[in-house]
């Protein structure tokens, strides 16, 4: 990609953060990739080719930004069902994601056993996720504790939505992490809704980030549409964890650009104005506008990226659709360990 070779502009915000032009264009690519994959999944669902979709339009910017400082091979990620962009940056491919959508045997998350959106991938250290929200927070703490005992230097990131933070597990986990100053980064992607229940009926006191203080570590809020700001706080959290100073809570306030899932219609409980206002905060657009303003996202580059994304998603769709379904009898396997 020609523009990626361009010289960094020292005055630009991203350059001040130590991000190269190549970095930010690659971040933009991942956001666009996740968005396009997301849209493809909905199309497939509407076409009757997929049963169910749960995705994260609006969440991609903060996810890519938060994952950016992490070491893809070494560090751990404990996702939730909206973590599509984060999982892509961590090393899952669009094909991996679509194999899960189609419940194919080769789906790396679960071999087609779980509903779509329940990510997991041992090779890139993404822990398997379940459906009950909040349960993954203590897992991340345990992973971080093991990293400490085994002196691996791994950092663990775990993500959840705002409603999920009402769960006891989330608080128990943060208490543990604070007590033991563990290398774990708690991410909350606050889209202001838990299905139809608005934030003010979910979070007493109004702030999620403020809760971190009670657990003895910093919590910060960042605008989830401001990718560079999200990156800045995530990098701080990462460096802090690496230095052994303990956890941090990152609350990303993100727009919610879609319904909760393919079984939901947000138009029933949100006003048009509100939905419109969220659209204006779309991180793909906001970040795109920034990259344009610094001369990186020219029409040519935009088209190059769009073409790359389309090609990758078309290929992934084809490969995943063609992939075989699991053998029925394989449903009996792996209740317990079956030997090495």
């Amino acid at each position, binding site marked *: 990609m020609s523009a990626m070779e361009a010289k960094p502009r020292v005055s630009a915000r991203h350059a001040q953060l130590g991000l190269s032009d190549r970095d930010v264009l690659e971040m933009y690519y991942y956001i666009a990739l996740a968005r396009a994959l997301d849209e493809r999944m909905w199309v497939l669902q509407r076409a009757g080719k997929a049963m169910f979709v749960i995705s994260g339009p609006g969440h991609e910017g903060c996810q890519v930004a938060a994952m950016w400082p992490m070491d893809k091979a070494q560090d751990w990620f404990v996702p939730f069902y909206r973590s599509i962009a984060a999982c892509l940056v961590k090393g899952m491919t669009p094909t991996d994601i679509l194999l899960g959508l189609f419940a194919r045997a080769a789906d*790396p998350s679960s071999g087609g*056993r779980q509903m779509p959106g329940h990510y997991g991938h041992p090779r890139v250290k993404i822990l*398997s996720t379940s459906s009950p929200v909040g349960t993954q927070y203590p897992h991340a703490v345990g*992973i971080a504790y093991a990293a*400490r005992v085994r002196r691996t230097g791994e950092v663990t990131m775990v993500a959840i939505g705002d409603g999920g933070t009402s769960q006891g*597990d989330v608080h128990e986990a943060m208490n543990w992490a604070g007590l033991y100053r563990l290398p774990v980064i708690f991410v909350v992607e606050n889209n202001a809704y838990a299905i139809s229940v608005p934030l003010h009926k979910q979070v007493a006191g109004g702030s999620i980030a403020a809760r971190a203080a009670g657990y003895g570590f910093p919590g910060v809020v960042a605008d989830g549409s401001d990718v560079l700001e999200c990156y800045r706080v995530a990098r701080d959290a990462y460096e802090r964890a690496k230095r052994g100073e303990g956890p941090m809570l990152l609350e990303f306030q993100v727009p919610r650009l879609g319904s909760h899932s393919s079984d939901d219609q947000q138009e029933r409980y949100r006003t048009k104005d509100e939905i419109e206002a969220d659209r204006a905060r779309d991180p793909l657009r906001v970040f795109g506008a920034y990259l344009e303003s610094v001369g990186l996202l020219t029409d040519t580059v935009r088209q190059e990226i769009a073409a790359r994304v389309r090609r990758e998603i078309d290929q992934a769709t084809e490969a995943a659709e063609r992939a075989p379904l699991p053998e029925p009898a394989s449903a009996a396997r*792996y209740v317990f*360990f079956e030997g090495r």
Partner: protein
Amino acid sequence: MAERRYIDAINLAHHEEFARDDRVVVLGEDVGRKGGVFGATAGLLEKYGEERVIDAPLAESSIAGVAIGMAANGLLPIAEFQFADFIHPAFNQIVSEAARMRYRSNNAFGCPVVFRTPYGGSHGTALYHSQSIEAFYAHVPGIKVVAPATPYDAKGLLKSAVRDPDPVLFLEHKRMYRIVKGEVPDDDYTVPIGPAAVRREGKDLSVFAYGWMLHEALQAAETLAGEGIDAEVVDVRTLAPLDTTTILHSVAKTNRALIVYEDNRFCGYGAEIAALIAEEAFYDLDAPVIRLGGPDVPGIPFSKPLEEWFFIDRHKIADAIRRLAAL
């Protein structure tokens, strides 16, 4: 070989496994300086330090959940719950997460965690320090449930549980801790998870029991031997996966079955054994299968006469055996 109390066998297993493999850690309430409320983890902190012997915050769901994460990242955690009654807040972590981790990830991730807890009624421990919880967990495929009744088994099964690649719920009937004694070798032996054990050979009927009920059943069998009834007593030992072979073999031999369990009778663990025998050994039976379970009240009451009313003891078991023998 030394004669040891049940609790000391548990403690010894911890020490041996800690020494054997530095991936073994223990976490739970008061497991460190105090060495556990019953002393199961005594001496570990002094030898192995705070990193491996973790006084957890008082939050059971996270004790289970953090252990699951530790296991995902290469440790072999033993999670202690002070009383089985307080494991309920961790139910979701154990059944939705630990028991399903391997299956849901299509074998990508396992969950080698031991969840240890004292359970069952003891004098004066009442509703919230007496519960039998085995049926809740034995119901879920993906977790093994063991309930050793002897010090030998306690050490050997705990060591197997620590080395097992899957989650194991390890149930210690608290009445046994200080009363039940037995030979426990100092060497590194294990007792496999799975097989049941015939503790007393007999030809007239089979009694199936585990935990403290095994000891009461053995006493009852001795009493009845004097009355000319020869009862076989089988220690079920591993509740999940169940050793159906030993059970069916015993019924084929004696043609009568009594199942004794302290949990509430309704939908209790004994129902599974009864159903197994009904399905697989119907033509071996000379009499209906009998279950002697705890009364269906929400817990063991505190006051002595109320408690006595609840408890299943050797006398109640002997009565049930007489009833069965007469059918």
